[in-house]
């Protein structure tokens, strides 16, 4: 575990208002994630894990609380500043791949870099090539998403997430639409990214995938229910060191 925090959430709340009824998706979340950690977020449907990932990825704003990313308070950034942070510091992998069907694989991977003002075409092309090599998909760069299998598409999505070398990778159910073989490939890819120094945070329903994370956070009704750090002793044994076994409001 790294001693330096990449993410700090302090009393973060998120409410949704539907037809005059307020629903609290996140209810006072306090969470620190260190640099280089591999964290899984799990819990039943509607527990708030995807909302938490959205807040972590600056895809949504918290209703209350403070969010510090890389030592900077990102709670009150403007829309453009949030976009810049997403672009440079966060890489996303979605359950449904979310590749743009009209763009080639290379163009899809290049997409985050096209929003950077300081990169020229040859630099972008070099980065894209490198990212595709990391996911072993360089031979499909000129194809379109529809010409690839689901597993291949998700590998492209991973390449897109890492192309700009962001310190934080957020993955929302990255293996949810994949068969076991492809799920394994993608999970391995994420592990490799983590080994290379990235902070990886995945939302998953799959207990097996969750177990492979260094730290497993479980949510229930918008609060952190458990936060367990798993220590790999040997190939088969994992000793779990509970950081927190909290009930609602105990933090």
């Amino acid at each position: 575990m790294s001693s330096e925090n990449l993410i700090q959430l302090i009393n973060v709340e998120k409410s949704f208002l539907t037809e005059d009824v307020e629903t609290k998706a996140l209810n006072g979340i306090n969470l620190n994630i260190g640099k280089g950690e591999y964290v899984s977020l799990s819990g039943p449907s509607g527990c708030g894990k995807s909302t938490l990932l959205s807040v972590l990825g600056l895809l949504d704003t918290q209703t209350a609380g403070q969010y510090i990313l890389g030592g900077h308070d990102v709670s009150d950034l403007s829309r453009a500043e949030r976009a810049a942070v997403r672009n440079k510091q966060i890489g996303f992998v979605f359950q449904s791949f979310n590749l743009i069907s009209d763009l080639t694989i290379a163009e899809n991977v290049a997409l985050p870099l096209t929003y950077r003002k300081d990169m020229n075409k040859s630099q972008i092309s070099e980065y894209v090539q490198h990212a595709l090599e990391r996911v072993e998909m360089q031979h499909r760069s000129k194809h379109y998403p529809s010409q690839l299998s689901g597993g291949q598409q998700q590998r492209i999505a991973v390449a897109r997430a890492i192309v700009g070398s962001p310190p934080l990778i957020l993955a929302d159910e990255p293996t949810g639409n994949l068969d076991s073989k492809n799920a394994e490939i993608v999970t391995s890819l994420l592990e490799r990214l983590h080994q290379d120094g990235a902070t990886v945070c995945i939302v998953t329903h799959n207990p097996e995938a969750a177990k492979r994370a260094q730290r497993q956070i479980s949510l229930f009704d918008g609060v952190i229910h458990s936060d367990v750090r798993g220590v790999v002793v040997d190939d088969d044994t994992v000793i779990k060191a509970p950081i927190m076994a909290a009930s609602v409001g105990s933090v």
Partner: protein
Amino acid sequence: MLSFSDFNYAVRLLIKSPFFAVITMLVLAGGLAVSMYVYSVLNTMLYKPLPIGDAQQVVRVQGKEKNRNRSLDAFELAQMQQHAQTLDEFGLYVNGASIIFDQGATRSVKTTYASWNIFQFSRTKPLLGRGFVQGDGRPGAEKVAVLSHRVWQATFAGDPAIIGSVVRIDNIPTRIVGVMPKYYTFPISAEMWIPLNDIELNPIGYADAPMSAFARVKHDTTIREVNTELTSILKLTQLQFQVSKEDEDIIDAAFVSSFQLAQTGNEGEIVFLLLNVVSIFILLLVCINVGNLILARTNERVNELAIRLALGAPRGKLILQMMLESIIICLVGGGFALMLCGWMLGLTDAFFNNAFEGDLPFWWSWGIDLDTVQSTVIFVFFAMFLVSFLPTLSATNLNINTVLKDGSRGSQGKFTGKVSRALVIVQIVLISVIVLLGSIMAIVAGRVANVDFGMDTTNLLHTEIALDETTYTDEDKQLMFFQQLLSRLRVNPEFESAMLLQELGAVKFGTDDVAYESEDSYPKANLVILSESEQLVGMDLLNGRSFDSRDNKDGLKTAMISQYLADTHFGGSEALGKRIKLVEDETDDEYTIVGILSDVKRGDLFVESALTHAAIYLPFAQSVMPSAGVLVKYRGIEQRAREELINSVNSVDSFMVPSRIRNYDEMLAKLTMMATTMTDLFIRCGIFSVLIAMTGVYGLTSNTIVQKTQEIGLRRALGADDLDIIKHFVKQGAVQLSIGFFIAALLVAPILIAATSLIGISPLLSILVGLGIILTISSLVTVAIYIPARKAVLCEPSESLRYE
């Protein structure tokens, strides 16, 4: 097949979405009404059969000289009447004006002098009395006339006893033998008919009497055959009478056309075609927009359709069921459109009849008629096809598996996206063409409305005096009459000035210091006969002198010229003292230039050409003629001036009254009103279409952007800021604009070339108009893209990513 329950279901669906139903029906009704209205107005003016019996075969015979329509000589027409095998019921006519004297009152009426068979030809029986009979034109026969219903009411208070009574018409005792039914004014807008006599109808040689002819084309005969025959008769006649014709402008061909097309001239059909293209384009725009609304609705129902298909519903029946909704919208929209069109036609009819009372061709009567109803049916079917096309295509492409698995995000989204992009391009093409045509019309309207005649037309009255040549037998008598008249007018305190002015059309002329190679190389100018006048009416003397008593029959032959002519041919003021010669002048006289007058627009008032301001003025005393226009500038009240003008004419000759007295401003206003009103109307249609197109582009772009909500969320998740997203869509719009403009340019290039040459719009103006259109449409389309794009980026990326 569809059953009543399907119909019921479609109606129920529409009732469940009242906003959608009302909007689509109203938009469609607006588009249909505009198209039907434009078609109906122009069809009535140009193509609808004349409202007389057996109208299909009716034609007017005319001549053509270098593509310009010309009247034929009575002799040429008589030859055609005698020898033509392709025409029936041939008759001659010429339009003019007559003065009716009735118990001290006088009234100038538009008179058609015609062959005796004119009423039989038009299959119309008189309301009272009789029409003409063959003997009415025989030498020595009693003079007879038939009145229009309007004149009968206005001049004789609708007194039936007028039949058989004798009235002085043009100072000749004439028996009124009949009154025609209301609205009958054949051949154009006649108020009275007088039979031509046998000598006028059958001259033994060229009579210098330009006339027109009416006839019916024989069955199984083509117009081409008629034209060929008439032209060969014309050529033969010209050949036989070569000697007497050698100095005249030769008419190249004879041809027949409908009265309607003859009335609007050569440009009528082009205008008809262009305006109908515009109206069809407007309908296309409307159908695309309504089709897009229905497509969006179909996409909303795509899950329902997929479930029905999965449950075993036949695809064909589902498609028909969906079409039923479009059909109902089109039928109801068509009904509204017919009512709207009828209302607009009624307004048009009332407006023109008020503004041009008695001057409109008799077939220009607008309202709902069989043609309008038929056109409605065609337009509605056209709309049904277009409106149903996209939703049907969408439903045909429906993939049940994809839809049931992914909701509407699968192939339907992609299909809609592609269609939307293509439709935006189509809209850009259509609106570019419409705006271009509208702009050309606006330019023409602007010219017409702001035409500078080069004359001060304030307080000017104009009338024509035609002397009876049996009384004023020679030039001396004729000159004396006009000189006396001018003296009386000039001493009358009601008038500030008076002069005679008669335009004689274009002539070729030569100057004494230029040698011309051939007759074709001589320049042209408008020839105008002008009386001596110390004070010119409406024009200014810029240099030299105006005509005076020195310019008499025995004096030096003199001329004045316009400033334009002086500048272009004589180096401005150096023209004074130089001599000009008229090419077709039988006398071979040379005219010494004594004065230069300010430019006055002559000829075709709305088209600028080298002839527009080129004018040669000759003194009336050296070119005496039995008829001339009298122009007076009055001081006080117009009505008094009118009365004094009649009194002055009567004081010279108690049997003489002027023809219809017209106020110059009023005359010019009427001249411009028709053009400006029609153009204004079509410009409004253009604005309507721009609105439709812009809302259409907005709708299509919104649709595309909604379909791309997830993509927007994704791009934003990857770091795109608001501006990046908006730029992305604007860039996409720029590509669509470029393609649209390119296709539009291919379509409008011939129109612009035609506008440059036909209407005289300069190439620079054409380019500026083109650039203006590109700029305007680009701005409007950008706004139409910006608004939904801006709206789309306002929600959080997480929300966009979850959007289905």
